[in-house]
C-alpha cells in the first residue's frame, strides 16, 4: 500500500534567522477582494484630504529689511545662501539653514533694482536707481575692512534689471536699452534697442546661453542673440509683461508674467501665440521663476498670493498666502527644487515648501493614488482669502455673462 504524505519545502516558510521578517502568504485573487473601485476611490479621497490636512507650506519668515524687498538672487553653488535687496538700497545676505542675516551692506542710493550672482559664486552684481552697476565680493570683509564694491560702473541711465551669462564673464543690463557688458570693461560691448522704450527685465537663456529675452514697457517681449548685430524678434501683447523666465530644461520655452493677471508660456520659435495661458491670479503678476526641474513654475502677484503652476496647465495646483504677506514682488524657486522664497512689500522674505504636504526630514514611503487624485474634488478646492474668492466669484459671474451674450 502506498501512503501519500503531505510534504512541504521548509525553504518556503522557515526563516533563515530569527531577525528575518515572517513571510505572510497572500492571495491576490480578485474574487477575494471585491469592490475594488469603491474602495480605491475612498482611499484616494482620504489621501487627497490628508494631503490637504498636512499641507503646511510655510516654513520661515526672514525679517530685517527696513523697506520693501525689491529683488532676490540665488547662489549658484550654495543652497543655503541667498541675497536680497530692498527699496532703500540695502542689501542682505542670508543663511537659510540658520534663517539669519549674515551680512548687510548699503549697496545703492534708492532702490536696488536687480541682483545676480556670478556663475562661480565668488562675486555678485547689483544695479540700482543711482545709475550704477556694482560688483561685490561674496566673502564678508574681514574685521576692520570697509564694505567696498570691487567695481563700479556709472551708466547714463537707470538700470532696471541685470543677468549674468552662465559660463562666461559677460552680463547684461537693461534700462533704456539692453546692454551687454564684458566684466573687464566699463562700457557695454553691445547695445540693442528697437524703437524707443524702456525695458523692465532681461534674462539669459540658461540652456542656449547666447540667447536673451527682455520685457519692454511698450507691451512687447524682445528676443536677442548675443552673437547677432540685431534683435531677433518681438512679440507685442495686450498688456505689459513684468518679468519673464526661461525654462531651464527646455531651451525654447519661456514664461512671462503679465499685467493682465495671466502668465503666458511661449515657444520662442512660434511667437504668434502662447501655447499655454496660465490663469488664476486676480491681480497683476509681478514675478515668475521656474523650478529647476522645468516641470513647474511659481508666480508672485500683486494680489498677495503665490501660485504654483504646472508648466502645461492652465490653472495653478497650489496657492500660498498668509494674512500678513502683502504684494509679493519677487519670487525664487530654490535650486534643489524643495523650497520657494518670496519677497514682499512688507519687508519680509518668506520661505515655503515647494510641495506643501511633503514631509521634509525622515520620510516613510506613502502610496499615492494616482488614478483618482485628479477626479477627487478636494484637491482643486484650495482655500483662498475672502477678498480673493469674492474677486474670483465676480470674475466667474462676468465670464458667465460674457458667455451668455456670445451664445445669444
Amino acid at each position: 500500500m502506498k501512503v501519500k504524505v503531505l510534504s512541504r519545502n521548509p525553504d518556503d516558510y522557515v526563516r533563515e534567522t530569527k531577525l528575518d521578517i515572517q513571510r505572510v502568504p497572500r492571495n491576490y485573487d480578485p474574487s477575494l477582494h471585491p469592490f475594488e473601485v469603491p474602495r480605491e476611490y475612498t482611499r484616494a479621497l482620504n489621501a487627497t484630504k490628508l494631503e490637504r490636512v498636512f499641507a503646511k507650506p510655510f516654513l520661515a519668515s526672514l525679517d530685517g529689511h527696513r523697506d520693501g524687498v525689491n529683488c532676490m538672487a540665488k547662489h549658484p553653488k550654495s543652497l543655503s545662501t541667498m541675497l536680497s535687496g530692498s527699496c532703500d538700497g540695502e542689501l542682505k545676505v542670508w543663511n537659510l539653514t540658520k534663517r539669519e542675516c549674515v551680512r548687510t551692506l548699503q549697496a545703492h542710493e534708492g532702490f536696488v533694482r536687480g541682483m545676480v550672482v556670478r556663475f562661480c559664486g565668488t562675486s555678485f552684481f547689483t544695479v540700482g536707481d543711482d545709475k550704477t552697476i556694482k560688483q561685490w565680493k561674496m566673502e564678508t570683509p574681514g574685521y576692520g575692512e570697509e564694505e567696498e564694491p570691487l567695481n563700479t560702473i556709472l551708466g547714463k541711465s537707470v538700470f532696471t534689471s541685470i543677468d549674468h551669462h552662465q559660463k562666461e564673464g559677460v552680463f547684461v543690463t537693461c534700462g533704456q536699452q539692453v546692454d551687454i557688458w564684458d566684466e573687464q570693461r566699463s562700457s557695454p560691448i553691445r547695445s540693442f534697442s528697437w524703437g524707443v522704450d524702456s525695458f523692465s527685465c532681461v534674462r539669459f537663456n540658461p540652456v542656449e546661453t547666447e540667447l536673451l529675452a527682455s520685457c519692454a514697457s511698450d507691451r512687447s517681449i524682445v528676443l536677442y542673440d548675443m552673437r547677432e548685430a540685431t534683435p531677433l524678434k518681438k512679440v507685442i501683447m495686450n498688456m505689459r509683461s513684468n518679468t519673464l523666465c526661461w525654462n531651464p530644461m527646455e531651451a525654447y520655452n519661456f514664461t512671462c508674467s503679465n499685467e493682465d493677471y495671466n502668465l503666458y508660456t511661449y515657444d520662442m520659435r512660434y511667437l504668434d501665440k502662447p501655447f499655454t495661458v496660465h490663469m488664476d491670479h486676480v491681480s497683476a503678476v509681478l514675478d515668475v521663476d521656474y523650478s529647476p526641474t522645468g516641470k513647474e513654475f511659481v508666480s508672485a502677484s500683486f494680489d498677495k498670493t503665490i501660485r504654483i503652476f504646472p508648466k502645461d496647465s492652465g490653472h495653478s495646483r497650489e496657492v500660498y498666502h498668509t494674512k500678513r504677506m502683502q504684494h509679493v514682488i519677487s519670487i525664487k524657486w530654490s535650486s534643489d527644487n524643495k523650497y520657494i522664497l518670496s519677497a514682499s512689500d512688507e519687508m519680509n522674505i518668506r520661505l515655503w515648501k515647494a510641495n506643501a504636504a511633503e514631509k521634509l526630514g525622515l520620510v516613510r514611503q506613502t502610496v499615492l493614488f494616482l488614478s483618482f487624485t485628479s477626479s477627487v474634488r478636494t484637491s482643486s478646492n484650495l482655500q483662498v482669502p475672502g477678498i480673493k474668492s469674492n474677486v474670483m466669484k465676480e470674475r466667474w459671474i462676468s465670464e458667465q455673462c460674457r458667455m451668455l451674450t456670445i451664445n445669444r
Partner: protein
Amino acid sequence: MPCAFIKFCCQLVCEKLNVCNDRIRKSKMCFDNKLSEGDKINLSDLIGTLDKTPSALIKTKKQLKNLQHNQSTLETPLTRKETERIQREVAFEKTSKEVSRWQSVVLQNQKAEQLVFPLNQEPSGPKRIEQVVAGWKAQTPLEQEIFSLLRMNKQPLHDPVLTPTEEASLRAMSLEEAKIRRAELQKARVLQSYYEAKAKRERKIKSKKYHRVQKKVMRKEYLKQFDEMVKTDPAAALEELKKMELSRMKERMSLKHQNSGKWAKSKAIMAKYDDGARKAMQKQLEVNKDLTLKLVIPADEDEEDEEESAETLPDFVNDAEHILDQVNPWMRGKLSTDPMVQEESNRLDPPVVRPRELGTPGEGRDDQEEDEEQMEETEEEALLRGFEERPDQPKAGPGVGQGESPALLEEGLVRVRTLEDVELLSQDVSASDPAPLTTTQTPGTEETDTQSATQQADKKRKRKKMIDPNEVLTKEAKVIKMPLAPTAVEDVEGKEEQRVIIKEAFAGDDVISDFLKDKRKQEEAGRPKVIDLTLPGWGEWGGLGLQPSRSKRKRFRVKVAPPPPRQDQKLPNIIISEKRDSSIAAHQVCQLPFPFENPTQFERTIRSPVGRTWNTQNTVQKITAPKVVTQLGAIIEPIAREYLIKDNRQAVTGPSINLESDQGPQKKRRSQQKKKHKRKKN
C-alpha cells in the same frame, strides 16, 4: 575733371621730386598742349597711348573699354530699416533652427516614466579603489616593475579603469542598446537553430509519399504565387515564365525521364508481371512526352506563322505529328462538328480560358477517352478561334448592347450591369407585374427595336441556359452597358420608372421595421432587472453543490424601481439615448490623456486597481513611482549642451536598431502624438 586732376598730379610730382626729367616735362607739355586746345581728355585718348604697349596691358585695356561701354547705374541700396528687418529674419531663423535641436530631448523628458534630478548624477555606492587612489604613484621597485608590466600589456593604470578596447566598445554602444542588440541576436540564433532542426528532421523522413505530397504542396504554392504575380507584377511574372521555359528546355536536353535510368530499367523488367510497375512506366513516358513536346504558340497573323514555320522546321521534322495534331484537327483524321455551327455556339458562349490545357493535348490514350478528348479539343479550338475573332468582330449576344452603347452614352448616365443582373431584374419584374417590363427596358422610344433585339438575345441565352444549366456556372460575367432612364423626361412613366428603380435598389432593405426593432431592443435594455444579492455561505453552510435557501434568495433578490419614462416614449420615430448620466459625467474624462493612444487602453489602465490589496509590493511601487525624483540638498543645474550631444549620438545610432526590432514606427507614432494631459474637473 580728369584732365585737371592729371595735370595737378603731374605738377605735384614735379615739385615734390624736384626731378625735372625730360620725359615728365614732355608729358606735361603734351597735356598742356592738349589742355590749351580747350578739349577734354577722353578715356579713348589715354587708351590710345596704351596701344603702343601691347602685351602686358591688354587686359587692362579691355576692362577700361568695358567700363566705357557700360553706362547703366547701380541700384540704390536698401534702406537701413529694410536691411535690418532682413537681418533680423535671417538671424531668427538661424537661432530657431539651432534651438530646435532640443526638441527630441524635451520630448523624451516629457515621455519619461521617471526623471531623476540632478540629471548628470554619478553612480552612487562605493567607488572602486582604482578611482580613489588615482593620484597614487608607484614608488618601490616592485611596484614599478608591476606598473611597467601593466603598461606593456596596455592595462589601465589610474583613472580609466577600463582597457582601451573596453572603453571603445562602451563608447560604441550604451547599455540599453547593447541589451536590445543582444536580444535580437538571441532571437535570430534561436530562429536559425529552429529552422535547422526542422530541415534536418524533414530530411530524415524516408516516406516517399510524404515527399511527394510535400512536392505537390510546394508546386501548388508556387503556382499560386505565380498567379498572384501575374496579377500584381506582370513583368516579373514574364521573367518567371521565361525561367520556367528555360528549365523545361534543360530538362528536354537531359536524358531524364527517358527510359534509360536504373529505376526505369528495373521497372521494365518488372513491368511484365506487375501492373503498378507498368503504370509507373507509362506515367514516366507521359512525363517525357510532355516535357519533350515543342510548344507552338498559335500566331495571329499569317506572316508570322510563316516565319515561325520556317524557323521551326527542324523541330517539326522531329515531332511533326504533335504540331499538326494541335493546330489542325483535320490532320487527326477525326471529324469534329460542323464548323459553322461551332462558330455560332462560340459566339453564344464565350469559352472559359484554361491555360493549362493550351499546351498539353492528351495523347496516346484509349479510344474511349479519345472521344471526350475530342470534345475538349474542339472547345480549345473554338477558344483559339474566339481569340482570333474577338478583336475585329464583336459577338452577337452582347455585341448588340455594345454597339448601341456609344449612342446612349451621349444621353446621360451610363449604368454598367452584368447580364445576369438584367435577367434577374427582368425575371423579378415579370414575376411581380408583367406590364412595366417593357417600360423598364426601354428608356427611349427610338431604341425600342435595338432594345428588343437585345431582349431577344437575352431570351435566346435564357433558353440556352435552360438546356444547359452547367454552362451558366462556367461562364464569365459579361459586362454590357445599359442606359439608365433619362432623368430629364418628366412624364408619369419616368417617375414610375424611378420608383421602380429605387425599389429595386433597396429591395429587401426594410428600414422601418429595423428601426422599430432597434428601438424595442433599447427599451428592453433600459428596463430594470432583478438583482440577486445572495451571498452563498453567509449565515449558513456553503460549498460545492449547496444552494442558499429559498427564503434567503427571495429576501436578497432586489427589484429595482422602474426608471423614469424614456424621453422618446411618445415619439414613435425617434430614439433618444439614455446612456448619458450627468452625475457620472462629472467624473468622466473628456479628453484622452497624453500617453494613451485609444480609449480601451486608457480604460484598462483606469480599471486596474492601484492599491496594495490587489497588487504585489513590487507592482505597487512601480505604479506609484513619482514622476520626478529630486534629492534634498542637491543643486539641479540647467540642462547642459553635452546632454544634447549625447542624445544626438543616440539618435544617430538608434534607428538602425529600431528598424530591425520593428519598434521604429511605434516610437515615431508615440512621438508624434502630443496631447495634453487634461481631465475634466468639476
